[in-house]
């Protein structure tokens, strides 16, 4: 049933993937370029068109002010957090940002919120899936880091909506990985998943039992990943260049981007080589060259990877387990390819980690498994069920600026808590609640989630109303609040002010905008296709000029063809699809006789025993017109 197709998406910091369960096992759906990984890079080209993935990747170095990477780092975050990120990443904030507004970043002359940028990536994945199915793909399971808070999860859901996807479930990345791993193994036991990606770190401890995947504890750091290793090396290179070569490149966007590219290549090489070269060409033609040995690299990254130790120990403690009680350790995320990381994991858990799964793809594959379960399951998944937890304690701010925890971290979700409130003043009709996430005692040290304003309380003497407020964390890890005044039985209206997020209205607005853009994008695609067709015809015409058939034409005919060709070339430079189309048709008509002549020649040649390929006239006799729509190599 095509309407039931639910795809699994890994929306990663560095790369994104889409997968689908086919029969017994999940498969990653490749892009048009045949590649499974879509770089999480978005760019705006000179014509104002959005580019995603590998096409956008080139822009990072060539036009860095029109490209953005690692947008996941800004999802669900506010201005204060962004200041921290800005010190390490070339995010450009919109100039007209006001306080309290959801952040927007600058791409060329346009601005976008992080969910909108993520939506561009999601839309690309959606298209890849639709191409694969040759049909619609409107429902998805999207993965998020287990340690993502409410605002970050909501932002991911918003991105899905903007991209035209109904997000049926957000699944935690380590849990998704365990699904893909467990589908394969079908063994019971305790599994630890160590997930070190481009921007986030998660560690989850799960109990696998007869198809039930029960998360016991999870921990992590949403500000820790391969990006931090890159930034360290970039800083060293910039320092070197400043010191040794007396050149300040830190504010030179293209140079920093080029350095970043070189650093990443070196980092990857050092996973299998004992040394690698960092080489960058400077604006004045000189070359910065530095060799890094594996030993030096290991020393440099030690403080960064050491930051994963705390969360691992805490997770074990929360689970009430010792390392020797863990049966398997699974590695997820590109950064776990680094030998030093593997060594650290081996030491922490006192066993060799499992590296059979593809660390880049396993999360997407797991998302596809979950998508399958949500669609009703199949033979392969019929006994599988995911029981996940909320990673952060949920609390309410009470008098004295203290947090009163009402749902503890690592509680299996869905989870709920009921609290009772009353009024302080006679006739009070509103009660304000400030909800937070985090483990600290003081509200100011926790993450503000939202302020809820309970309205419409029947006016009574102070202390009389009994307002029952129910807090529910759903299976996505997102909070829902409902309230009722018990004496009157009246349901309370709740006004929500999210601390870091888009309102429903804003998201609605973005969906409509993206539909307009879809219209625009469609046009752009049409133009690109027309241009490609024009190129094909011009190339075929060149071949035509080499063939004996050309000599048969009159000089008038030759001149006319040349003129139509010039006109076509002129329209291709412009943006009018109709103009290009007209010119293509005109040239086709103008070269009709030449084509027929070439056909005759081809047929004659074929009759002489040569194949159509050897006669070099494109597709075989089945092609009605050798100069139209041939495959252009």
């Amino acid at each position: 049933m095509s309407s039931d197709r639910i795809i699994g998406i890994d929306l990663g910091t560095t790369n994104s993937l889409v997968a689908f369960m086919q029969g017994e096992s999940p498969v990653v759906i490749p892009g048009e370029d045949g590649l499974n990984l879509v770089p999480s890079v978005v760019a705006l080209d000179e014509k104002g068109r959005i580019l995603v993935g590998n096409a956008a990747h080139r822009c990072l170095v060539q036009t860095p002010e029109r490209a953005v990477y690692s947008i996941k780092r800004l999802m669900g975050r506010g201005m204060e957090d962004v200041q921290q990120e800005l010190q390490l990443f070339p995010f450009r904030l919109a100039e007209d940002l006001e306080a309290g507004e959801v952040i927007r970043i600058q791409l060329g002359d346009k601005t976008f919120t992080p969910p909108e940028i993520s939506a561009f990536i999601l839309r690309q994945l959606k298209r890849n899936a639709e191409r694969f199915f040759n049909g619609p793909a409107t429902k998805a399971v999207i993965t998020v880091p287990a340690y993502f808070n409410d605002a970050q999860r909501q932002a991911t859901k918003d991105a899905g909506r903007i991209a035209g996807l109904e997000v049926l479930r957000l699944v935690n990345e380590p849990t998704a990985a365990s699904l893909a791993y467990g589908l394969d193994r079908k063994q019971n036991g305790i599994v630890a998943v160590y997930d070190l990606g481009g921007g986030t770190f998660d560690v989850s401890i799960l109990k696998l039992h007869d198809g039930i995947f029960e998360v016991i504890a999870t921990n992590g750091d949403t500000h820790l990943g391969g990006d931090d290793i890159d930034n360290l090396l970039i800083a060293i290179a910039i320092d070197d260049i400043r010191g040794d070569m007396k050149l300040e490149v830190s504010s030179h966007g293209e140079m920093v981007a080029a350095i970043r590219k070189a650093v990443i290549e070196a980092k990857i090489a050092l996973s299998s080589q004992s040394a690698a070269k960092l080489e960058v060409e400077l604006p004045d033609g000189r070359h910065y060259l530095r060799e890094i040995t594996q030993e030096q690299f290991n020393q440099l990254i030690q403080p960064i990877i050491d930051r994963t130790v705390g969360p691992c120990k805490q997770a074990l403690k929360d689970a009430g387990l010792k390392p020797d009680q863990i049966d398997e350790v699974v590695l997820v995320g590109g950064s776990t390819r680094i030998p030093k990381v593997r060594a650290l994991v081996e030491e922490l858990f006192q066993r060799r980690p499992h590296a059979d799964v593809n660390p880049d793809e396993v999360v997407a594959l797991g998302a596809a498994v979950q998508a399958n379960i949500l669609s009703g399951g199949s033979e392969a998944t019929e006994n599988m069920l995911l029981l996940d937890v909320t990673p952060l304690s949920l609390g309410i701010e009470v008098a004295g600026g203290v947090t009163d925890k009402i749902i503890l971290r690592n509680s299996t979700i869905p989870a709920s808590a009921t609290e009772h409130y009353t009024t302080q003043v006679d006739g009070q009709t509103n009660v304000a609640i400030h909800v937070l996430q985090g483990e600290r005692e003081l509200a100011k040290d926790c993450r503000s989630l939202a302020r809820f304003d309970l309205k419409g309380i029947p006016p009574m003497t102070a202390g009389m109303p009994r307002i029952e407020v129910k807090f529910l964390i759903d299976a996505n890890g997102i909070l829902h609040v409902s309230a009722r005044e018990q004496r009157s039985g009246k349901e309370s209206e709740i006004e929500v002010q999210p601390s870091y997020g888009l309102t429903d209205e804003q998201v609605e607005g973005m969906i409509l905008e993206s539909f307009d853009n879809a219209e625009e994008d469609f046009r752009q695609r049409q133009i690109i296709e027309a241009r490609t067709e024009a190129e094909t015809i011009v190339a075929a015409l060149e071949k035509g000029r080499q063939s004996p058939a050309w000599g048969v034409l009159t000089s008038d005919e030759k001149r006319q063809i040349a003129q139509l060709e010039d006109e076509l070339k002129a329209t291709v430079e412009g943006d009018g699809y109709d103009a290009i189309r007209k010119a293509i048709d005109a040239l086709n008509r103008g070269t009709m006789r030449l084509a027929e002549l070439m056909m005759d020649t081809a047929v004659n040649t074929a009759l002489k025993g040569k194949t159509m390929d050897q006669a070099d006239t494109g597709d075989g006799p089945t092609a009605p017109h050798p100069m139209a729509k041939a495959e252009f190599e």
Partner: protein
Amino acid sequence: MSADPKTVISAAKASPAGADYFAFFGLPLKLNLDIALLEREFYKLSRKLHPDLYARAGKQEQDWSMEQTSLLNDAYRTLKDPIRRTEYLLHLGGVELEEQSKTATEEARASGAIKKQVVPPELLEEVFELNMQLEELRMNKKMGEDDPALVKELESQRVSLENKHEALLDELKTYWTDWDKLVDGGSEEDRGRVRDQMVGLLNRRNYIRNLVRDVNEVLGD
């Protein structure tokens, strides 16, 4: 475009209060529990109720599934842990532990003060001594003075407190057996006695836990 950031969500009906976690699992109101059996039931019920199995169902069914599963999870979480299970059973009987007393909590919230806890009588002397030592170490730290002997003393006190904390759990389990015997046949008076013993023990245990926390804070762990 600067849209008004306030969104209105209308409230759903709150679920009926007083859902009995024991009944949810088909268990009697007894404190000794087969944990393995509880887990099996939990998995079995999860497979019936979980929202993932209702992804394609109508809104009403999905809401019901959400309600039921959160109740299941809350029930399992409570019954699985020995202390929470005990506290819950006491709560069902209308008893509240000192620390959890809502009235005291609300008074404290209203006045902005920290709730006062009653010191268990048998710990009076020890607590007095400990608080003196904690105050002394706090002062030393303020002055920037080191006192390794005092630190060592406090560390050993902590160990002793932690052991007491552990031992209390074992003691609690003996009361469980007493209680369970009285569930099927026994006087209200007898049950009241056992209940009071458990309340007293838990209050003591909480108090000791808070002491350990205070020591940790001063020792800077």
